[in-house]
């Protein structure tokens, strides 16, 4: 469950990125976050793993007010919220397998049995055969799938994707969405910020539209434009 209550974010230069946003996303939901560039989508997403702190308001992730977490408590939050970025954020010096394993090592959860878990996650995203390749040897879609595998390997109950199809062609973008739908069906809450009108309109999932830092539309089976 994700809850935002009257969240305001004003940057030091005076930009009001979020202007009193309130919303609720229940567990296992699949939500598209849409809006024009600069609407505040990325700022909102970054609030959820405390990559950003709000100027005022409260952000609850699984009943924990993340705005009140101490720095030492952030790793625990970030281990529950898987993040997927438009630029993938893969380490270029590590292979696909190593990139996925790196998350487990960084969180102290790498065990011998984790190898099976990594193999099954890579198979799920369709990279079972390419686990030894480096990011530069992969297409954009494959890199995004590797990033999704990295987010999945820890069994995070929440998966947040910031423009995951932004750098992908239509077909690959569609494959990525299908993958996220599959993951959602397995019980993971998915929140995805996107500009991809066609995907949103085809999926007919819940759509939260924001503009100038405010929620302007929230529809159960929404479309890109209301």
């Amino acid at each position, binding site marked *: 469950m994700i809850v935002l209550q009257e969240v305001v974010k004003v940057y030091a230069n005076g930009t009001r990125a979020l202007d009193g946003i309130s919303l609720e996303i229940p567990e296992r939901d699949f939500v598209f976050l849409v809006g024009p560039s600069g609407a505040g989508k990325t700022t909102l997403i970054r609030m959820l793993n405390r990559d950003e702190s709000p100027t005022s308001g409260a952000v609850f992730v699984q009943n924990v007010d993340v705005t009140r977490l101490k720095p030492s408590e952030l790793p625990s939050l970030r281990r529950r919220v898987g993040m997927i970025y438009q630029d993938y954020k893969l380490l270029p010096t590590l292979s696909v397998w190593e990139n996925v394993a790196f998350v487990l090592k*960084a969180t102290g959860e790498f065990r011998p049995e984790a190898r099976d878990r990594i193999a099954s996650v890579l198979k799920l995203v369709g990279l079972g055969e390419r686990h030894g390749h480096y990011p530069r040897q992969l297409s954009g879609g494959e890199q995004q799938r590797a990033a999704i595998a990295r987010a999945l390997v820890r069994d995070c109950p929440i998966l947040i994707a910031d423009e995951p199809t932004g750098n992908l062609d239509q077909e690959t973008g569609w494959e990525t969405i299908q993958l996220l739908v599959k993951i959602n069906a397995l019980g993971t809450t998915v929140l995805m910020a996107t500009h991809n009108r066609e995907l949103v309109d085809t999926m007919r999932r819940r759509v939260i539209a924001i503009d100038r830092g405010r929620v302007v539309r929230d529809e159960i089976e929404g479309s890109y434009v209301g």
Partner: protein
Amino acid sequence: MRSKAATLANLHTARYVITAAANALWRNRTMNVGAIITTAIMLITLAAFLAINDTLDQMVVGLGRKSNLIAYVRDEARPSAITELVRDLQRRPGVAEVRYVTKEEALAQFRSQFVEQADLLDLLQSNPLPPSVELRMNDPAALPALAGELRGRGDLFDDVVVPLDVVERLTSISNVSRAVGTAMVIALTGVTLFVIVNTIRIAVYARRQEIEIMKLVGATDWFVRGPFVLEGAAIGAIGALLAAITLVIIYAQAAPTVARIIAFLPISTDLEFVRYLAVFTVLVGLVVGALGSYFSVRRYLSV
């Protein structure tokens, strides 16, 4: 079960930290070797200053111990006043020993020191040597004031003899050297810290993407910081070890030679202090390296 898992996780983290630090040391070897050499040079200079200070201190103390202040007692001085003064002097800070030497003891001492001239005394009808009060000092710095005070007691003493010049000069050299040494210790520690901080900062900058990802996936601060702190500590410790080895070799070679050349000064050739200094130098290198790295990586942890 939970604690076993936690122990396993800690072991994995420790293994990762050590492996990552070793990899980084090797990967950035050119830069690290530069930092190690610079650190070694800084710490050799620092340790040399400490060694010189210690030698000067030992010389001052050694000379002070030898510097028997001798106050020659007037014939008409009251014995009770002398006894009282001797008791008073024994309680003074910096005074190691006070001895009243009678006329007879002075004569015996003269005979034993100047065996060949002993016959001269036989020519005299009576013992010409005056009784005296002799002082041996713990702290030679207290000697000038004490000498002045005894000279002021003209009712008791004819003359007060003390090798003040050498002691005073050595004491002032030692004080200047200590002040310069302290400033050098601060400055050189600062420079060492600066070199290590910058070396690690470059390493941190090169790996900033990795750090950002680690933080975003929920790595603890120590998982991120550990390899850098270990790398910095290793640079500091290796540099310091080189400095310590060089220092011990130089001191072992040079001290006996210097002691032979300046035979009249009590220069210590004891290696024990230098061994302590070597251990201290290594600890300084280790701590400065670790602290420098700790602060270098801190700003990148606020993701």
